């Protein structure tokens, strides 16, 4: 899932620039699970904003809503009345949600309350760790289920660099060397053929360093268009 960190209150207040009516918008998706932007965190941010404003002698009116997800129009279209009543929206969703909100409510400032950081797994109590970079060319079948693109600091594809040290990365002793993990796992499975295969450079054009990516499921897309056309015809007949 997508992991995010709360921005400091000062930064959120600075971006609000003294606006009086604020809609704090949590998100019921990933940021709820990583305990950064769900209903509870939205309530907490709202009370922080109220208190800070009161202390500063410039009271604000803060309302809170937490839709199922902010990355899907069907859940944010219904927020119209709340958004219109506010001077600004502070969104606790990831960057995806903030952008869709800003697109749907074009005239309203939608301000991020979190820094979206990575795609990761729940790796311990209150801990999330990055596991995927969305490179668009998954090699996990060959690497024993350890991603060298996300988990090697240099995204190497032909094995460890000279910085691998007692199973750790040269960057930090707290980070496992991804290629050490790959080697150990493939060795345990008795097949080092992937490690031995000389691999060509990756196609970064398919990754996040390429252009903006779009996924279209053609069958769903066609069906929706057909339904739209039929609906229009039906409406014309009824006239």
């Amino acid at each position, binding site marked *: 899932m997508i992991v995010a960190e709360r921005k400091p209150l000062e930064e959120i207040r600075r971006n609000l620039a003294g606006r009086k009516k604020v809609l704090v918008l949590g998100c019921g998706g990933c940021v709820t699970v990583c305990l950064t932007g769900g209903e509870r965190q939205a309530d907490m941010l709202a009370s922080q904003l109220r208190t800070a404003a009161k202390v500063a002698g410039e009271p604000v009116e803060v309302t809170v809503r937490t839709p199922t997800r902010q990355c899907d129009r069907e859940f944010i279209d219904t927020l119209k009345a709340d958004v219109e009543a506010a001077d600004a929206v502070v969104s606790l969703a990831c960057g995806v949600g903030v952008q869709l909100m800003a697109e749907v409510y074009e005239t309203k400032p939608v301000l991020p309350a979190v820094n979206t950081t990575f795609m990761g797994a729940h790796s311990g109590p209150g801990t999330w760790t990055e596991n995927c970079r969305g490179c668009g060319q998954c090699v996990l079948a060959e690497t024993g289920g350890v991603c060298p693109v996300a988990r090697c600091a*240099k995204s190497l*594809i*032909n094995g460890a*660099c*000279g910085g*691998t040290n007692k199973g750790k990365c040269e960057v930090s002793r707290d980070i496992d060397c991804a*290629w*050490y993990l790959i080697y150990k796992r493939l060795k345990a499975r008795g097949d080092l053929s992937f490690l*031995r295969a*000389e691999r060509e450079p990756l196609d970064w054009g398919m990754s996040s360093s390429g252009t903006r990516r779009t996924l279209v499921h053609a069958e769903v897309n066609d069906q929706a268009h057909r339904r739209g056309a039929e609906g229009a015809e039906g409406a014309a007949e009824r006239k």
Partner: protein
Amino acid sequence: MSKFRDSLASGRFTFTGEIGPPKGTNVEPVLEEAVHYLKDCCAAVNVTDIQTAVMRMSSLAVCRMLVERGIEPVLQMVTRDRNRLALQSDLLGAAALGVENVLALTGDHTTMGDHKEAKPVYDLDSVGLLQTMRKLESGTDLGRTMKGEPNQLDGAPKFFKGCVVTPCAEEVEPQIIKLEKKVAAGAEFVQTQAVYDPRAFEKFMKSIGHIKVPVMVGIVLLKNAGMAKYMNANVPGVVVPKEITARLAAADKKELKKVSVQIAGELIRDMRGCCQGAHIMPLGWDKEIPRVIEASGA
């Protein structure tokens, strides 16, 4: 033609040295030292490429200045700072400037250096850089025409391609596998990470007996006992035996340089039977290289 390649091909025990470009434009001191102390005793001189991710003058510029002074350079090239467009462009530039020897490296991570905010590139890895050189040599590049055909170069370069390996890594099998891939990708010579344990090195050389390219053992001058301890604790794959640290610790301050040179010379003497050359990394003690070679008896 690379004299360095010829020296290794002749079976002569071959020495290479190493210099680091300056942080600034004052390049004369390092060039002067190279001319005075390395020119006569080394077949070629490596020029580091933004070593340890600490920003310095370009390796290619200093390589060309060595060529102009009659010294054959080894252009070190890391994949940290340039994507495949820039790397290929600089490789063609190197060939045009008379720089034939290229050492392919991944490069220390940006966060290890003095520009920690920099965006690391790593478009290719060291194996990919070797593949790229071979491709350029064949007259094409990594790209494609609009029709999807290989691009044709107007003039193909010729390189003497090198790579590195860490012989004393605690897990040596992945090191050997990667070395096999580097050689399969076109590496023609190997310079190793620093080695201080001749017996471990001999064992490593036996385990790569099937790899038929010349190997030059890496020698880093240990300037004092503190440095030996630091290398042991912090440099991946470097093991300094206690006896060496003890010799440095016992040395009189005035004698330290002499002891350091003696240790390096003895290491080469003890290992020269099982490899084809030595790559001496003096870390600023360039003046000592001739004495190290003399002490090695080679």
